[in-house]
């Protein structure tokens, strides 16, 4: 009798333990998203169209979220400095177009051109972050902002000439937004695209993400990757074990920056436009909250967190407007997005276990 009770108790404890590790906010968001999917058909929205939207948005954003992983692993915290990498990507994009590459080649060249910038920016950014260990997140935020606002000037001043990008009447300075259909718009999404009824799967973009994710996963299992995890979980211990902490951190920042550069290019090929000037300002927070929603903490993140987080976050973003509009003719999705994404970051920042790092 008492044995049964015992087992029952341990079972309940187990469930509770699981719930705890899953986290209340994540549970709420998952439940919310499921609810949205259930309600959606009643509001007149086509289920498969909705699924397509979510998959599409996932394929645009996943790489940007993946860019969080290396820095979180090495203990540099959440990469609020994502815009630094994004700027490198934008430089790659604009220069590739300026130098006359078109079609899929322009995408490849954009990555190739963005790479040296990403390395350079990453090295400088990593060097700075090594100087200010412990205060990374705040400084990363403002380094990102500074770089973005500096490049706001550069987009105007740099001698871009291509009429597809520059302001028509002046011929100088880049436009805030320009389409890239002629260049690499949809190069990944349309590659091996599968269409079943109204469900469309952008296979190429998903494969590209899978490739990068696999690379990161494999890297984290190499010797250097293990060292990175060690630095992230206990820097003092790692140093005692003979790991060059600063070098590893630097490497992680460079990797994150490069992934962000590639991430923005993937985003653009899906979105179909290049956005310059103030656009990168608002790109760090969604990526940060996506990975947190996926179950990452300020010093622990896995590929699974990236995938789950991006699906949940993008699902929320795409589902809420349609459902809310259909249901009560009131679009509070923007407000909901702001509250949920920042609420998630706050939740992560205020948890005791992480504060004592």
């Amino acid at each position, binding site marked *: 009798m008492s044995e049964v009770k015992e087992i029952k108790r341990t079972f309940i404890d187990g469930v509770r333990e699981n719930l705890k590790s899953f986290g209340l906010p994540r549970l709420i968001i998952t439940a919310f998203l499921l609810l949205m999917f259930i309600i959606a058909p009643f509001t007149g929205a086509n289920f498969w169209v909705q699924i397509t939207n979510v998959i599409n948005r996932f394929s645009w954003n996943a790489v940007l979220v993946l860019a969080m992983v290396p820095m979180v692993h090495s203990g540099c915290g959440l990469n609020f400095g994502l815009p630094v990498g994004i700027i490198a990507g934008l430089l790659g994009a604009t220069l590739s177009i300026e130098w006359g590459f078109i079609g899929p080649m322009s995408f490849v060249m954009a990555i190739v051109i963005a790479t040296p910038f990403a390395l350079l920016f990453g090295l400088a950014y990593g060097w700075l972050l090594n100087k200010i260990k412990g205060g990374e997140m*705040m400084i990363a935020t403002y380094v990102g*902002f*500074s770089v973005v*606002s500096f490049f706001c000037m550069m987009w105007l001043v740099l001698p871009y000439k291509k009429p597809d990008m520059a302001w028509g009447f002046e011929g100088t300075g880049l436009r805030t937004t320009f389409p890239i259909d002629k260049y690499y718009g949809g190069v990944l999404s349309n590659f091996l695209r599968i269409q079943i009824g109204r469900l469309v799967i952008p296979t190429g973009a998903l494969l590209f993400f899978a490739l990068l994710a696999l690379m990161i996963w494999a890297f984290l299992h190499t010797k250097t990757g293990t060292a990175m995890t060690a630095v992230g979980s206990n820097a003092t211990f790692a140093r005692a074990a003979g790991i060059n902490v600063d070098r590893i951190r630097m490497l992680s920042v460079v990797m994150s920056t490069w992934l962000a550069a590639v991430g923005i290019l993937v985003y653009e090929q899906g979105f179909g436009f290049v956005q310059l000037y103030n656009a990168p300002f608002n790109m760090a*927070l969604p990526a940060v909250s996506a990975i947190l929603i996926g179950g990452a903490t300020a010093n622990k993140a896995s590929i699974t967190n990236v995938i789950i987080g991006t699906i949940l976050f993008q699902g929320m973003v795409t589902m809420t407007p349609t459902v809310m509009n259909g249901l009560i003719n009131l679009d509070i999705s923007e*407000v909901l997005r*702001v*509250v949920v994404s920042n609420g998630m970051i*706050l939740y992560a920042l205020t948890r005791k276990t992480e*504060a004592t790092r």
Partner: protein
Amino acid sequence: MNNKNKTASGKLLNLLGNNAVPIMFIIIIAFCIPISGFSSLFLLNEIMTRLSRNTFLILSLLIPIMAGMGLNFGMTLGAMAAEIALIFTSDWQIWGIPGIVLAMIMSIPISAVLGLVCGKILNAAKGREMITSYIISFFMNGVYQLVVLYMMGSIIPIVHNNIKLPRGYGVRASVDLTRIRKALDNVLSVNIGGVNIPVLTLLIIAAMCLVIVWFRRTKLGQDMRAVGQDMEVARAAGIDVEGTRIISIVISTVLAGIGMVIYLQNMGDMATYSSHSQIGMFCIAALLVGGASVDKASIGNVFLGVILFHTMFILAPSAGAKITGNEVVGEYFRVFVSYGVITVALVMYETKKRRAKAGMGAQLAAAQQEGDKR
């Protein structure tokens, strides 16, 4: 001898290093004034306007710095409270000085509640207050939108149609405050040699400065400083650390609310959804330009900061236009400078903190060695 020389030059370097940002700004401004081609009268008038408009807001940042909580990016919450109060007073059509005073009074409870929430959250995130307060300001911006864009007019009664959106609920993107425009500034305003001086606003600011000076000497003020120096020591001394920290944030938020009313009465127009969004950044940048750091700020820093930062702000677009032929470059430049200044200040603070830590470690090691010798 050599050693002495070193310390002297070290001191000079320290002095330069500590005031690097203001010095840099003075150079930028000295460079921009002749290029911009503004008359000194115009500049003086503009600076006086900005001084009366912004100083009170920036003063609200001082107290959390004293309590060791860094730059309070959560001051935005106070600004939102003030905006909500102003929406109500405009809807009730209470204008002029009574409108301003009522808005200030109404903003206080809203600010206090928001500040309380903010303080509680910050207590759960000790050591990362700044990033947390920064995210709180974003989070609360969402809540603010929910209230102002969806609840006002539907749940919260709003009478007048020039405030409501045409759809029947929610507040328009801009609230007209022409009828309280400069109501405060124009009382007792004096014109000296073509420069308009809003005496009453300046008197309010002066009074606030005195209050802050007095506050530093009170028991609570002393407690805050103790908490700012070392939380553990303060706790051992019997100070309610958490409570003190919350109070400092509440005071800061309330002051920011009052400051925002002063700011908006000077502007005479309120962008409902964006007036508050940049205010924290500009105030913090101004304070830092005045030579403050994350852990140390004085009233002097506030005034110097307002003058230097806003002079740059006035000059940048036209100087940019003259240099690059494009006014927008100047506008981007001043945003870049604002962010850049905050970045530099944060980096300097963190490196100083690390150096102090390392220095303490070295001292401890030296002391231990000495002990061993004996």
